[in-house]
């Protein structure tokens, strides 16, 4: 589904991602870990196509299409969706209006989706304006439930979320990734950035990767990587050097 090969990305003429290779097949969920500032969010934003991130060499292909020069909205239409870690507030734009503008769903369908994540009272509020940490995440999940992307990128879905919301978020994200669908029929894929690994309590991931200083250093079983990082820190991954 997603193929990244020999990818180099620069921000303000400084290379921040070096020689990234990543393959995510249909139905697969991958976990991306790594210290703060290692380039994890940069990778997600490069896949989404944000202006500030310039691909200097290598390629990103999705469903067989080269994304390099594709505008963000066309990537979204192709099936890429992203949960932002710090989504901007858009004053004057009602959440309900945004959801209506980005889908062909009727008002009732949107209302029902909003209720499923306890966001029905937020449809008439400005997008993300004055939302708490948990509300921001639920707003993001709601937008993705409306969008139904085939490939879902989640940038630290646990951050700023209390325990009660975490359970809701975990279940909803599992639903978005079709974890309830038999593995042979599962088509939705995901790439999840996590520091704590709490999300793994709600869904199984197929592969884990560790990024350090703009390079993917290790690949492996996500739970094993999490255990090693918890016990020994990222230094162990530096030593592992399985590029």
């Amino acid at each position: 589904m997603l193929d990244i090969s020999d990818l180099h990305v620069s921000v303000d003429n400084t290379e921040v991602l070096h020689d990234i290779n990543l393959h995510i097949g249909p139905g697969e969920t991958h976990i991306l870990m790594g210290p703060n500032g290692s380039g994890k969010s940069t990778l997600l934003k490069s896949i989404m196509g944000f202006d500030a991130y310039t691909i200097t060499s290598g390629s990103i292909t999705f469903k067989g299409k080269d994304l390099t020069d594709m505008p963000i909205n066309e990537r979204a239409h192709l099936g890429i969706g992203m949960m932002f870690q710090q989504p901007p507030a858009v004053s004057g734009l009602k959440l309900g209006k945004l959801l209506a503008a980005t889908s062909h769903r009727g008002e009732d369908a949107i209302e029902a989706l909003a209720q499923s994540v306890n966001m029905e009272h937020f449809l008439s509020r400005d997008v993300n304006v004055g939302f708490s940490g948990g509300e921001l995440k639920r707003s993001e999940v709601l937008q993705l439930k409306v969008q139904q992307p085939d490939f879902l990128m989640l940038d630290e879905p646990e951050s700023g979320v209390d325990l009660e919301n975490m359970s809701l978020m975990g279940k909803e994200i599992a639903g978005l990734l079709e974890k309830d669908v038999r593995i042979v029929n599962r088509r939705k894929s995901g790439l999840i950035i996590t520091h704590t690994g709490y999300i793994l309590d709600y869904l199984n991931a197929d592969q884990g990767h560790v990024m350090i200083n703009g390079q993917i250093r290790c690949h492996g079983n996500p739970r094993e990587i999490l255990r090693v990082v918890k016990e020994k820190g990222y230094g162990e991954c530096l030593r592992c050097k399985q590029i």
Partner: protein
Amino acid sequence: MKQIPEKDRERLALTGLEVEMHNRCGSFFQIDQNVIQTTCGAEDVEMLPIKAALEKYDWLKDHYWKAVPKDKDKYTQYVAKQEPQGLVVIAQPGAKVAMPIQACLFLREEPVQHVHNIFIAKEGAEIHIISGCASSWQKKQGAHIGVTEIYVGKGARVTSTMIHNWNPGISVFPRSATIVEEDGTFLSNYICMQPVRQVNMYPTAHLIGKNAVARFSSIAVATPGSLLDLGSRAILGAEHTSAELITRAITTGGTVISRGHIRGERDNTRGHIECKGLILKDGVIHAIPEIEGTLTGTELSHEAAVGKIARHEIEYLMARGLSEEEATATIIRGFLDVKISGLPAVLQAHIDAVIDKAESGF
């Protein structure tokens, strides 16, 4: 009103004029210096041309050139020298009219249109006035000088919404002032999103009674060649009065000067000025907020920001599937969405429609 050519009727519709009078309680229509129509359906609200009003009510002279001084500047002096023309609205004590009164001032042939309006809401009365000012599509040059005096009585509430739709050669000089008594509320909304040569105004609200409130909201778009010198001022002249001055300014090549002044001169007074400017194409947005406190019991603040649309907001909406143009238009529309509390739904819907129509032109 139906004798107006189609093309001009469209221009008038953009200012909020309801030719068919749907959702309007009364209507006043002045073309150049001629009053074409004055009607009012509500019982305890009277609308009449100023000349007739001055003849009919002797007491009106106490409200004539009282809020706005005759010799304020050359424009008021000019109007004072002319035969008075304009609209007087008198809302009797307790009169409550949910539907707006519309006053339409249309500049068609004469070089200068002058008008002198007086709006009086007596104790406990509640009225909404939409002043739509426009010029004929054929009108290349001209000037409009409008004096408006508004008196908000004890516990009364007046909403005055002014929508401008001029031409690139027209200069406009509104001169208005409001006196708000105890527990009175004055809401002023101003919208100018069409090309004009120059608009120059600095309306003042004098809050002279306890608990009086004034709120000015302005939405201004300066197209290339337009100079919008806009201000609003509130004098907190009694205890527990408060004022809020809110401006959203956009330039697509013209100049907006956004002035604001709040003077707190009594205890337990509060005032806030907020000006946000969006530069879509190189032009000027110049915010000049002034807050002036004269004693310890007043609390005044201001915030102003001028800049371009935040790139990360556009990208956020694009990640949800909107094109860059759609995302930009959506953000601009949101920027202009000033929340005006206490506005009747019909008026808010109307303001929204005016913004929507103009916004599609960016």
